């Protein structure tokens, strides 16, 4: 056994910056997954049949293949199409779209769970179809879906490390840079795991708080 955790503190700054990138990536991809997820859920309920059929294909592929492979596709595919976008952008969008599909599943069920009476009440007040959806149905659906969406965001946080495979700076990559100089993988990967565990705990706590606060609105 040959462990020496004193090699880690000199790289604390680098790891902290890596952690900030991880949090930023998670936040951005999480936002994309939510916004696109809502759109996708609405489309799967209200869009005409041919659009729904068209959407089913990418949904099927995203659910049935590894995220890492999807990230490679976005990374190599976009440049093949002549789109020279920064890797950071492709990584965040890829991550966000992947989880948008999972969120859409939850949101769809939540929207359908809102009682017909809510539509009728909105329409009876004089709101249009879209306005009824926006003001009455969607907010309730969001509150109901919140616990499961929160769960997806927690999974997304941990899957955000995969963007390191296409060279995006985040916690794992910053640890790899430190390891290339110290040759101490165990100490640094354990540290990375510990940092992730803490971020995960904090996020879990925050999500539980939000969920509790909005409990009455479901």
């Amino acid at each position, binding site marked *: *056994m*040959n*462990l020496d955790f004193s090699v880690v503190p000199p790289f604390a700054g680098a790891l902290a910056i890596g952690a900030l990138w991880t949090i930023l990536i998670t936040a951005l991809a999480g936002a994309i997954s939510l916004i696109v997820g809502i759109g996708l859920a609405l489309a799967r309920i209200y869009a005409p049949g041919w659009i729904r059929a068209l959407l089913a294909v990418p949904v*099927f*592929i995203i659910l*049935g*293949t*590894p*995220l*890492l*492979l999807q990230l*490679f*596709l976005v990374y*190599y*595919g976009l440049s*093949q199409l002549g789109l020279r976008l920064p890797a950071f952008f492709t990584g965040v969008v890829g991550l966000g779209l992947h989880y948008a599909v999972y969120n859409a599943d939850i949101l769809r069920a939540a929207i359908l769970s809102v009682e017909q009476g809510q539509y009728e009440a909105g329409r009876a007040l004089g709101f249009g179809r879209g306005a009824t959806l926006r003001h009455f149905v969607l907010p309730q659906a969001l509150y109901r879906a919140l616990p499961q969406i929160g769960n997806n965001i927690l999974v997304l946080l*941990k*899957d*955000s*490390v*995969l963007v*390191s*495979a296409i060279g995006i700076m985040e916690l*794992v990559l910053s640890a790899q840079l430190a*390891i290339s100089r110290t040759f*101490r*993988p*165990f*100490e640094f*990967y*354990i540290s*990375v*795991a510990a940092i*992730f*565990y803490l971020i*995960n*705990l904090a996020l879990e706590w925050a999500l539980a708080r939000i969920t509790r606060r909005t409990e009455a609105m479901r």
Partner: protein
Amino acid sequence: MDLDLIMRTTQFLGEAALMTLALTAGSLVLGILAAGAIVVARLSRWTAVRALVAAYVSVMRGTPLLVQLFVLYFGGPQIGLTLSPFAAGVVTFGLNIAAYMSEGLRGAILSVDKGQTEAARTLGFGRLATMFHFILPQCAALMIRSLGVNAVILIKGTALISTIGVVDLTYSAQRIMTSSSQPFEVFGIAAAYYMLIVFGLTRIMRLAERRFALPDEARA
């Protein structure tokens, strides 16, 4: 579209798919066994055992799978644990999915009404016999369903093995994507293989679920 490339890619990825399949099978067996052990430990009467296992599940679920793989594969030799990339993958994926599977199995057991345990215990059955004759038969199908969901997650998770150089589907697909400049075709073929494996496994699980389902007349 380059037909020759597609043919060669299909063949090449077919071999890589066997690697993915082997990795999945190994991890699945280890995962199910470990998940069973975790569930038993969580029902233990010793608080320390329960706390330890709960901590294990929490850490496995609270840290990235990729980091777990790196700790074992790259960090392992430092603590005298040198594993081949394949073995490191099977151990990591198996022990990781076991944490998730154990939650599903536990949930299935807890979904059986508490009155069932009371009724069995009242008749005079012991703890083990109660579990075996009354609780498990009622939740076996639910257990298999949750195992199936986790097995699908596992299949997709095995792609991470490509980061430590095992020639699995994702590794091969990435290599051809870089060299061939036809990423969409290559992805399509790799995706087809993945979905074939997912489909096959889902079918097996569904058959098993049906085999253990209660008869229709027994359902309320």
